[in-house]
């Protein structure tokens, strides 16, 4: 791990990373920015960032999946795939759960066919049930997911963007609203802020 200054970075320090773009790490096809809950490792000699420390990655994955599943904007193919992968389901297992033909699911994931509303709602409900503890914590009503009005992507130009503030409480990651510049945090929330446990 050499660099311009010719030293081997070894003296690692950690500071809080504010505004961490977690979309690549999570494989999320939409922006996910984390405020808090992430540490940044850097070299004490040259200051180069060497990595990130995530306090509860399992909970983070569950939170992002549930929040996307509960947002009313229509899911595109890569989002369907993202939700499937977050649940660690093979394509054929998810197809079976949704009573869909696996070849059809594959066309949906590749944006060759749109997902019909009925199946889309079932998928969203499956995500909430898979991560039921997280869904309960955030205050999601699974029946709402089944009756939600899904907004067509054509009607909205805005991309789905999650600004999450993760705080640690009793060694568990908790979600807190973050005062993002546009004041538009967990966009999906019809009832306002998700329930906070802070």
């Amino acid at each position, binding site marked *: 791990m050499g660099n311009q200054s010719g030293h081997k970075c070894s003296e690692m320090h950690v500071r809080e990373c504010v505004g961490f773009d977690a979309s690549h*790490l999570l494989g999320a096809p939409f922006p996910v920015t984390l405020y808090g809950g992430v540490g940044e490792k850097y070299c004490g000699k040259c200051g180069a960032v060497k990595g990130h420390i995530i306090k509860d990655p399992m909970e983070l994955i569950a939170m992002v999946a549930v929040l996307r599943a509960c947002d009313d904007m229509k899911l595109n193919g890569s989002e369907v795939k993202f939700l499937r*992968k977050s649940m660690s389901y093979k394509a054929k297992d998810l197809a079976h759960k949704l009573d869909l033909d696996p070849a059809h699911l594959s066309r949906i994931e590749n944006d060759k066919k749109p997902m019909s509303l009925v199946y889309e709602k079932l998928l969203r409900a499956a995500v909430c049930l898979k991560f039921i503890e997280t869904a309960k914590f955030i205050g999601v009503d699974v029946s709402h997911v089944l009756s939600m009005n899904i907004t067509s992507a054509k009607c909205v130009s805005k991309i789905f963007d999650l600004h999450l503030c993760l705080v640690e409480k009793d060694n568990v990651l908790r979600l807190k609203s973050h005062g993002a510049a546009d004041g538009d945090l967990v966009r999906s929330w019809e009832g306002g802020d998700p329930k906070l446990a802070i």
Partner: protein
Amino acid sequence: MERTKYKDEQLWLHEYFDYIGILDVDLDAQIQMTHSGTSLPEVLDVLRNGTVVCAERDYNGCEFTVKGRNCDGKDIIVRGVFHADMSMVRVVAIEKTR
């Protein structure tokens, strides 16, 4: 799944995320993840369910290599370190078969 020679390390790694679950991901590993299209859920799956194929302990902790398959049938190899003092798993490198 193939059997492991490193039962202690594997058991520990499989259980770790249910109890402590702090994950340290090196920037190099993050870049490898982006390039190979490997996401955190896949890496966690491998750590929690994969086979430890190599482990070397010293006073700092333990270096391990764990192999697993993702939900799309691709093999993923994760190299990491378990810090003895900090009770933390650090991911150093990721490899995914095409």
